[in-house]
């Protein structure tokens, strides 16, 4: 009983100490995150063209999905790519409102005089029920703005100048899917396409779904991937290389805390496997 509690205590200390003292290490390089940065960097939009980012996560996976959503939006905002935000997951509503506001405020503080306003930089179409059927209908709609109808504030999306004439789904130049839910991710992969249209899809996944996400990355169905917190941390480092004033200290602390927990866990696994050997040897000698 005491041993079990000691393990819990060690894990909480391993996670908590870097957070309390603000310890941060440079994250490991992740090629898939770099690929995703390059893909987003190459997106160029004409008036009316947009990126569409799905926040399909709730409080249960914010640890991994929120930093991913932040870095992807930060990159899109920096490149002045208008973003339509929406979700297939009810519990994402709070994050659809909070994250773009936080990112916009941070960028405005970094670059005084520049602004990222709701209705110009992004629009929040909110939670959309229907999953695959909704996506399939949107893909076949003549005008995405009109199909989406109203934003979360009840305003017709077509009334915002930047989003007034998106037209067909072909004008969605990038699709971002941030989720830990395999089902909703599959909806995007399976149904966000037409005969003559295959979007550029990038994905932020939780650690659990990394092995499955690699399959889609390998087949080319995904063009870029953020693997858990580590993927977001490395993406933020790449952003920082290009925009040195970018602030990512908190994300690096989070990533460091995770690494510290990994080290403790590995040590415990090694100890747990070696200890019985010594115990057995002791019994033989005893």
């Amino acid at each position, binding site marked *: 009983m005491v041993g079990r509690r000691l393990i819990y205590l060690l894990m*909480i200390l391993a996670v908590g100490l870097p957070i309390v003292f603000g310890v941060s290490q440079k994250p490991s390089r992740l090629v898939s995150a770099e690929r995703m940065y390059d893909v987003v960097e190459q997106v160029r939009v004409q008036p009316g063209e947009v990126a569409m980012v799905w926040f399909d996560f709730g409080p249960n996976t914010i640890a991994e999905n929120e930093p991913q959503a932040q870095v992807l939006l930060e990159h899109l905002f920096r490149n002045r790519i208008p973003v339509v935000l929406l979700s297939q997951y009810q519990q994402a509503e709070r994050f659809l409102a909070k994250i773009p506001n936080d990112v916009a405020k941070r960028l405005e503080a970094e670059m005084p005089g520049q602004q990222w306003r709701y209705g110009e930089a992004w629009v929040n179409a909110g939670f959309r029920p229907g999953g695959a*059927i909704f996506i399939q209908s949107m893909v076949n709609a003549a005008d995405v703005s009109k199909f989406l109808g109203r934003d979360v504030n009840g305003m017709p999306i077509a009334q915002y100048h930047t989003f007034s004439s998106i037209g067909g789904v072909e004008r969605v130049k990038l699709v971002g899917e941030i989720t830990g839910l395999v089902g909703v991710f599959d909806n995007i992969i399976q149904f966000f396409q037409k005969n003559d249209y295959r979007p550029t899809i990038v994905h932020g996944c939780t650690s659990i779904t990394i092995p499955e996400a690699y399959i889609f990355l390998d087949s080319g169905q995904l063009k870029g991937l953020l693997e858990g*917190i580590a993927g977001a941390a490395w993406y933020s480092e790449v952003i920082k290389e290009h925009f040195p004033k970018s602030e990512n200290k908190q994300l690096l602390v989070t990533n460091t805390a995770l690494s510290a927990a990994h080290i403790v866990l590995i040590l415990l696994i090694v100890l747990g496997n070696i200890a019985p050997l010594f115990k057995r040897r002791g019994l033989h000698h005893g």
Partner: protein
Amino acid sequence: MDSSSSWALASVLAGGLATLAIFSFLIKENGFYRFFEHLFIGIAAGLGPMLIVRDFLWPTILEPMLGLTVVTYPDGTHPEPYQPLYLLYLIPMAFGCLYYFIYSQRYSWLAKLVIGFTLGASGALAIRGFFSEAIPQIAGSFKPLVVMVEGNISLMESFNNILFVATLLLVLNYFFFTFGKEGSLQGKMAPVGRPLLMVCFGAFFGSTVMARLALLVERVQFIVRDWVSAVGTFVGIG
């Protein structure tokens, strides 16, 4: 302190309390943990139906059908008039309500109509989805075993592709149960698929552990950063 910040403070305080209550199970089973566990189950059960009404039934069906989305300008005119076609929603709604006949012995066949329709639609979606998802992956598995980069053989990429193709074939062979006898090449190669699968399961397990630790990191961050300062504000020292 205005009402919105009071509400935010109360949310953080309650969130921290709930987190600590759930974590208290790590010490031992206790009433504090049990209370918050029941609270969570109750909230989750109540939240689902409420969200369906708030996020789907009301804004998507009832509000437009009742004409409540029609904007009226101060001069009394409307940019978009009421669309009576919204009333057609009543037909699928009535059809969907047939499901409740499942409780009637006499008319339960009416519920089967809805179930049959749902199964048919789901099946069609699943078939379409499968082909959209799987065919690019099958095509993606056709990899060159010797990769040439600028006229030279790329040893690393070639090795990766050979490993990929070999793993794919060996694992597929492992699940070949219909024919092939012991002693044949197929039979001899079958056990090789097992350790490769174990590597895959190890990767899945490792990534699951990583995800659980990420959750712990987020909760500890919340407690250390948000909750502690909220407690400070609440007791007047923040």
